[in-house]
């Protein structure tokens, strides 16, 4: 067993200068990839996919402030799907197809100077196919005649490095803070928007706050615990002032593969559809996923053994996340009647004895745990959104529905597959059925 480098995060993580790790052999795929060099940093624009508009806008601003020119990709539609189909193996999961399709079709659109642009994609080291997105992207670039475009791996695993890009510990912390703010917005918005008296109030508020936070970030503010507490309180109070009319709505939770769950391009605008169908929607936040990924390192060591020193480092990072989580929860429960998100520790408790904590590929046990948590907190109507043929989902999604229902017999769960061929009409039909059952009461 080689234990040369160890990583903090595997899947969908963000990079980290600290080398902790996961039984990863020294990376062998360096080969002929195009490096993102220090020179490029000066005038290259780094394009990143847009999974969650608010979160990613904040992340973008954090990157900007750290000296990187970053653009969020906003192109959607059939063209993205077709480009994906053209350049990526058609049986690859839908998220890969979309992300890569979005990037290549953006590069082909003429909007960017393809010699002054780089792409960034999260790289994972976990056992799910997502670890390979970056390589599929590079293959696709070659096929599309764009092999000069450097691709930056955003990872916590020391998988690939670039002289022009380094995710420092400070940036990592900033990113986690950004995601926490994003989660707060998502949480409050979901609880408000279905009841708004003036449609669009919540969105307006978010726009205002994203602007405000970005300006704070520019001045290196809004990151300190004090600053955060102040901001969060103000945000919560702002949302609390939005005029709402409480009418009974069907409460629906959404879980699933992370990209399909969040990206409206991937899930055919699921959240808006549900709101139109007279539902209140709850989508668990990104931080839970981040903590899950960090925690996996600890669980790996618990299950299979490993260095205690590494465990300590990871635990420190975990502690930091828990602090952020605590602030978010406190601000919500102290200054409003909104429902705060469950603690990660609580979600983990719920899953104990249901799915093993070693189940870590993809969304792993977290997906099942989120179903349990939603059912427990009153969102017993659940949509499990997944790419067609998603491997971890066979296990922790569809595979566990029966068990979730044993624990919460009232749970009303519908798995929905997303892929380029699945049509909206079929998906909506299935969701409507779930809602009809829900409304029967």
């Amino acid at each position, binding site marked *: 067993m*080689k234990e040369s480098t160890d990583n903090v995060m595997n899947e969908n993580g963000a990079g980290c200068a600290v080398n902790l790790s996961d*039984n990863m*052999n020294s990376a062998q795929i360096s080969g002929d990839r195009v490096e993102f060099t220090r020179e490029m940093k000066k005038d290259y624009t780094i394009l990143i996919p847009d999974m969650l508009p608010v979160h990613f806008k904040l992340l973008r601003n954090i990157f900007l402030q750290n000296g990187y020119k970053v653009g969020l990709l906003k192109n959607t539609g059939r063209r993205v799907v077709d480009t994906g189909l053209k350049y990526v193996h058609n049986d690859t999961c839908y998220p890969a197809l979309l992300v890569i399709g979005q990037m290549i079709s953006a590069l082909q659109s003429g909007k960017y100077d393809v010699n002054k642009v780089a792409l960034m994609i999260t790289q994972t080291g976990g*056992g799910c*196919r997502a670890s390979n997105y970056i390589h599929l992207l590079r293959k696709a670039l070659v096929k599309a005649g764009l092999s000069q475009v450097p691709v930056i791996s955003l990872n916590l695993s020391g998988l690939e490095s670039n002289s022009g890009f380094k995710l420092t510990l400070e940036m990592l912390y900033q990113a986690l803070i950004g995601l926490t703010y994003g989660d707060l917005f998502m949480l409050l918005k979901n609880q408000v928007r279905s009841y708004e008296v003036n449609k669009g109030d919540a969105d307006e508020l978010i726009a205002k706050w994203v602007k405000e936070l970005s300006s704070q970030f520019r001045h290196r503010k809004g990151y300190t615990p004090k600053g955060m507490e102040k901001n969060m309180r103000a945000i919560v109070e702002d949302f609390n002032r939005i005029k709402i009319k409480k009418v009974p709505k069907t409460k629906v939770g959404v879980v699933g593969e992370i990209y399909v769950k969040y990206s409206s391009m991937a899930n055919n605008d699921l959240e808006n559809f549900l709101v139109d169908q007279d539902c209140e929607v709850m989508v668990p936040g990104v931080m839970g996923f981040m903590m899950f990924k960090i925690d996996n390192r600890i669980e790996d060591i618990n299950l299979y053994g490993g260095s205690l020193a590494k465990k300590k480092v990871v635990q420190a990072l975990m502690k930091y996340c828990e602090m952020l989580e605590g602030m978010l929860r406190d601000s919500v429960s102290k200054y409003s009647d909104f429902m705060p998100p469950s603690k990660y520790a609580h979600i983990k408790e719920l899953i104990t004895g249901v799915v093993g904590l070693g189940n870590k590929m993809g969304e792993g046990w977290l997906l099942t745990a989120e179903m349990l948590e939603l059912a427990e907190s009153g969102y017993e109507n659940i949509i499990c959104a997944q790419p*067609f043929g998603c491997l971890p989902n066979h296990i922790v999604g*569809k595979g566990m529905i029966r068990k979730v229902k044993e624990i919460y017999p009232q749970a009303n769960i519908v798995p929905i597959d997303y892929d380029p061929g699945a049509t909206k*009409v*079929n998906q909506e039909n299935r969701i409507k059925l779930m*809602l009809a059952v829900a409304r029967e009461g």
Partner: protein
Amino acid sequence: MRIGLDVGSTTLKCVVLDDNDRIIYKDYQRHFSQITEKTVHMLSDIREKFPDEKEVCLTISGSAGMGIADTLNIPFEQEVYATRVAVNKMIPGTDVVIELGGEDAKILFLTDGLEVRMNGSCAGGTGAFIDQMATLLNMEAGEMNEIAKNYDKIYTIASRCGVFAKSDVQPLLNQGAQKNDISASIFYAVVNQTIAGLAQGREIEGKVVYLGGPLTFLSELRKAFDNTLKLTGVAPENSLYFVAMGAALKKDNKSFDIDELIKKIEGYTATGGYASCKPLFTSKEEFDKFLDRHKKNSDHIKKVDTLTGHAFLGIDAGSTTVKAVVVDENANILCSRYLPNGGNPVPLIKEFLEDLYNQYPDIHIESSAVTGYGEEMIMNAFGVDYGIVETVAHFTAAKKFQPDVDFIIDIGGQDIKCFQIRNNAIDNIFLNEACSSGCGSFLQTFAGALGYGIEEFAKLGLFADKPVDLGSRCTVFMNSSVKQAQKDGASIENISAGLSISVVKNALYKVIRAASAKQLGEHIVVQGGTFLNNAVLRAFEQEIGHDVVRPEMAGIMGAYGCALYAMENSTGKSGVLDAEGLKNFTHEIKMTTCNGCNNHCKLTINIFDNGRRFVSGNRCDKPTSKKAEGPQYDLYTYKLHLLEEYRRSEIPKERARGTIGIPMGLNMYELLPFWYALFTRLGFNVVTSPNSSRSLYLSGQHTIPSDTVCFPAKLMHGHIEALLKENVDAIFYPCLSYNFDEGLGDNHYNCPVVAYYPEVLEANVKALRDVKFIYEYLGIHRRKDFTKKFHKVLEKYFGKMKFADVSMACNYAYEEYEKHMRLVRMEGRKYLRIAKREEKPVIVLAGRPYHLDPEINHGINKLICDLGAVVVTEDSVSDMADHVRTKVLNQWMYHSRMYAAAEYVADAGDPKLNLVQLVSFGCGVDAITTDEVRRILEEKGKIYTQIKIDEITNLGAVKIRLRSLFAATGQKSTK
């Protein structure tokens, strides 16, 4: 008065209820996608029938009705929910409803917690599927029902998806199996599909109600359900109208003025619009120029009426059509024929020959050749001289039209075949996998469903202004895409053009997976019956961006190639039956079961006059040849044989600590020696579940929660059921995120399914909770930590145990595993040496350990041996590869062996050494590995061959692939 309107995918149903909820009127019609017109029609009828009723309540239901309801603000009820409302009212006490519709299949569990299951995006076993099968059998669904009443036996037909089933049914037909048996088998396939796909672990029991078209009209389908479920279901009166009834019963019904309502619907044009592609032709001139260009390409091949000199016969007995052609010495065509094969090519060929001999009494056929699915049967039936693989036939023919041809694409009824030609030899072959074989017969079925003949239908699209963009996806998905387009108001012309375009896209992006036209080649010849369709041809040229050659005889190129081959290889005397011989021709079919081995293949024996016979249905050559020709070298068989030693231990009962049951599937095909050694050394007996079989699979299928997971994983449910029947103290099947690290890759994971499937079993097989099921997370990759952990696990389940004992047993286990792998590698080396000495071709059949299971590999290893090659496994050569540099993250251990094996094969530079990759259908990981293995091989000029396997039991297509590979490598090595 309340009206419920059910707008289904293919039909329109309505029900009118009076104030006492009694049905006073009902109507059922196919809508052929003209939903608005038909709806108006139906409502007008109601208006006429009940002239006094002006105020009516209307609720719409059904998936195709959502659009109208939304736009016109008419109440809508989800159709399953409507069914439920109606059933509760009409048949109180119902436990389960099974409803099959045009494209939907549903099960409703009404008692003990309502659960509703609908088919997902992977849908087979519906009305459309039955229709498709009926078309294949050349009869109506009703006729199928009639003849199914007298069946003798049931064949295994893959039940997942229509396309799969088709590739099972077609060979059965071609092999002369009885249609009544096939019909009944199709019904049973539908039943299996419904149960496996929808029940997902819930038992179907109690009072069961059958609803929907197929279950209403097909008594034998109901019987198949009854027999399988071991109960008698209810087929209620009005079983077609339950959805409409449920809609009519909707509580908060809105009332309308019926005349205004009709007017409103009349004025409804679908909103939105849809994604569209470029029109095929914008003017008549453009079209004429196009036709003219294509005609010129075939000018040099003439049709002749009189024969001077010798004649050569070519036959292509394809899967859905039979083609025959006779040419003269100048390769001009004397006569040809193109016919749907109707399930049995023999009488068609007989008739062709009879007509030929009648018309040309003096004809002398000097040589003949046949290709296609029916090749062997036709050879035997008529004494045809040569049987050649389709690829060779097509290449031979294409050269006649484009001497520099470097790419051939043939879209036939059920297959897409593409060959890349380099240095005058077939360099690469693409065949469509079972999942995307939509192509020709799909167009046909669709045309039929919309009420057109295929030619008429395809022509509709030529001048369509906005062809629907249906993307590139398999048939089943396409159905719902079309449904969506209809909803969005696409005209029939635009749908027709869209379907032609999508056939092309399927071929390009799913089968060939080309990124650009340049990649295909400069000189492309297109052929196959589907390309006779100008819309498809045009779509192809548009998609790749340049002109191609379509021979006038695009539909009979296979047969023409055979005739040319026969000419080239003529010995001057053909064995083909002459006029006299044909007069005495007889053909008799007998069915029997082979008892040569455990497979118990169902054999179809065709006996012809003069004692010629042809046996089909066999997986090996045992029943057909008296003695095997020399020894066969098959490492798959050897590995299985090695594992036999670990299947059951016999420590006397009084000394044994207990018995451990191990399910024989997935990674156990590799780790069994490890666990066996570990447990037996500690004094436990070990028992494994029996070999996989169809019945073992069926016994577990009701607990499969995800119908799209790979077949090897699904089989585990059966193995667990089998173990539960053994008297074991514990069932052991650990979760393993990591595998051993062989140092071949960047990491050494198991895939998520292999790693965590025990969790799925625990969650869905209830009986496992009543036994000790040990599915702990273990890390065999860290030996020291593993020993400690395993000690703890043992103590948890079996009480105190000495650590020293466990530690020793672990050492022993690691050694036993090493020994096992060493033996495999040594034997592999031996086979390679033998192959070298005897100059035999070698196939590295690269899969995963569980592909050893004959129920999973369907005997492909034996088939390769029968073709004269030596078979070795990926893990027997992976250690010999030089440093493997992949362009993907090489993180799964089993797959790292495949990359290494590919590297080994690529580096060896031996034309006789090739790799065939086995891919399980639904294996997501292989979406990545197949591309990479292909790259490794092709960069060094090797041919990449992939075989996708699922429940499919037909080896016909696999054989074509392998023969093409051997033909191509044969050509290569002689160049």
